Each structure stands twice: as C-alpha cells, then as structure tokens.
C-alpha cells in the first residue's frame, strides 16, 4: 500500500528542522529555499503548516509539464521531476494547488519531494511528530477509530 507523508500541523512548532535536513540531504547545504518541504507560517495568527508533496494520483505538475520531466511512476506512485530534462519554465510551480513544487534559481530547475527514496529524513528529524510517513490505510483506520470512540463516548 502506498505510503505518504502525513502532516498534523497542530503538532508543528515551526522549528523548521525538516527544511534544514531536507536541503542538507538533497543539496548539501542548509538552505530552506532549497528544501523540498516548506513550512508556511503566520506569526500573528500563530500557525505553522509544513507542506510536502501529496504524491497526487493525477498530479497537476505532470499534466502541465511541457517536456515530460515531471512523471508519475505508476508502480510506486511517486511523482518525480527529472532535473536533467527540466527546462525551468515554472509551469509546475504555478500549477501545484498545494504550492509544493519549488524552484532552484542557481541550477534553473524545478525540484520536488522524492520521499528520500522511501526513507524521508524530515520524518526522522521531526521531533514533535508533526510529520509522519505512513500508509494511507493506517491513517484511515485511525480516523475511523476516532469517530467510533467519539460516538461511543457521546451520550445518546
């Protein structure tokens, strides 16, 4: 079953460790702007939302890529950008409804989450447990359980 990054933003404290480790692993530098996961924050409203790739079934980035650099692997369900084919036209960045795909102006290529090939480092380094890497089944199971508990606890 497909595993995916699950984000519980209530637990995110906005430390941005995930951004640091992500850019370090992929680009060799600690630079949030080169990270594949980004934390959106509103300091006045007080929320931090880590945004990673959803690995959509029908990804917009793949749909709009004019050169076929963004592709979805039907077997693994991974959506990846082949940086050597990317022409840096930024269509994927405009199209992603989650503001996920990112752009590296130095290399002139778009990049996105690759789940570290199945071992996401952001999950390892997220000390609050806001980011987890689990199968969708498990998460659904949990939600059903939540609903069930609440139904039982509620007075009829």
């Amino acid at each position, binding site marked *: 079953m497909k595993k995916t990054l699950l984000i519980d933003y209530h637990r995110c404290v906005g430390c941005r460790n995930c951004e640091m480790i992500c850019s370090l692993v992929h680009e060799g530098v600690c630079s949030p702007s080169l990270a594949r996961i980004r934390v959106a924050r*509103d300091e006045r409203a007080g929320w931090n939302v880590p945004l990673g790739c959803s690995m959509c079934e029908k990804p917009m980035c793949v749909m709009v890529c004019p050169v076929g650099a963004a592709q979805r692997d039907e077997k693994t369900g991974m959506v990846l950008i082949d940086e050597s084919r990317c022409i840096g*036209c930024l269509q994927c960045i405009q199209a992603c409804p989650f*503001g996920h795909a990112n752009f590296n102006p130095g290399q002139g290529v778009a990049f996105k989450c690759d789940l570290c090939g199945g071992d996401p480092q952001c999950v390892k380094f997220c000390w609050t447990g806001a980011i*987890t890497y689990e199968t969708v089944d498990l998460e659904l199971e949990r939600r059903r359980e939540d609903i069930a508990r609440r139904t039982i606890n509620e007075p009829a």
Partner: protein
Amino acid sequence: MKRLQVDFDKCTGCGLCQLVCAVKHDRQFNPVLARIKIFRYEAQGLNLPLICQQCAHPPCAAACLMNVITKDAVTGATVRDQENCIGCRLCQAACPFEGCTYDYDQDVVVNCDLCGGQPACVEICPTGALQYLEIDLVLERARTAEAVKWVSLPEPERSQHG
C-alpha cells in the same frame, strides 16, 4: 529573479498589452508583432495571454540552428542576437508557450525581453492580469493560500497517536 505572471481570470482580452508591446519594440500599433499573444476562446469565455516564460533551459535555445538564443546571466531573461537570426522558425515549433513571435518586418523571430526589467504590458494592463513578481513571492503566496485552507478547516477532535 522576477517573472511575468499572468492571472487568466482577470484578463478581459482587451489587447492593450499587445499594442503597447508592438509600439514599444517595433514602433507600430500592430498586435501581430507583439511578443505577447492573446488566444481568445469565446465559446469558453477565456482570454489567455501567452508569453515567453523565460525558461531556465529554454527549448528554443536547444533547437536554435544558429545558437543565437542565450540566457542573460544577470536578469535571467532569454535573449536573442537578432543580427544573426536566420528566421527559420524552429524555435517557434520548439516553444510550448507560443513565446516566439515572427517579426515580419525584419524576418527574424523575437521573444519577450521583459522591457529590460520594466515590462510595458504590466504597466498598461488595466485589470492587473499581468504582474511582474519575484518568484519567491509567487511561491510564498501559493503556500500561504494552501496553509490558510488547512487552518480554516474545523478542528477534528482526535485521539492522540504516535
């Protein structure tokens, strides 16, 4: 790095951008010579201005028979050495974005030069459909919009896990 951003919802298809582009670059009010092209689909009620996306690794440059298309190292714009363009139009076929315009006057192909950093089309656009924005800002906006959607959802009562 800045980028010419189009908000298709705001475009009314008035064509002012085309006129100002043509008059600025070629001194004539001729939309055919404009580097920005509006594709109008009346049945769907859509006006789509298409323009050079200033790709980082432009397919037009990859196709060019004369190697006259290069990237400006400072501004990031896709620039052409028009003197040596032979007008073969291969770049037109290679560009997915209709970013290349054939200049019938000079028999060369031209593309958006961002007016050297102050695009005239952006200045004249009456609805704000054309904007000239920092890429970082564009990304930031998209992320914030998504995050706002998340935080405005009703909070589920959840039992703790993990």
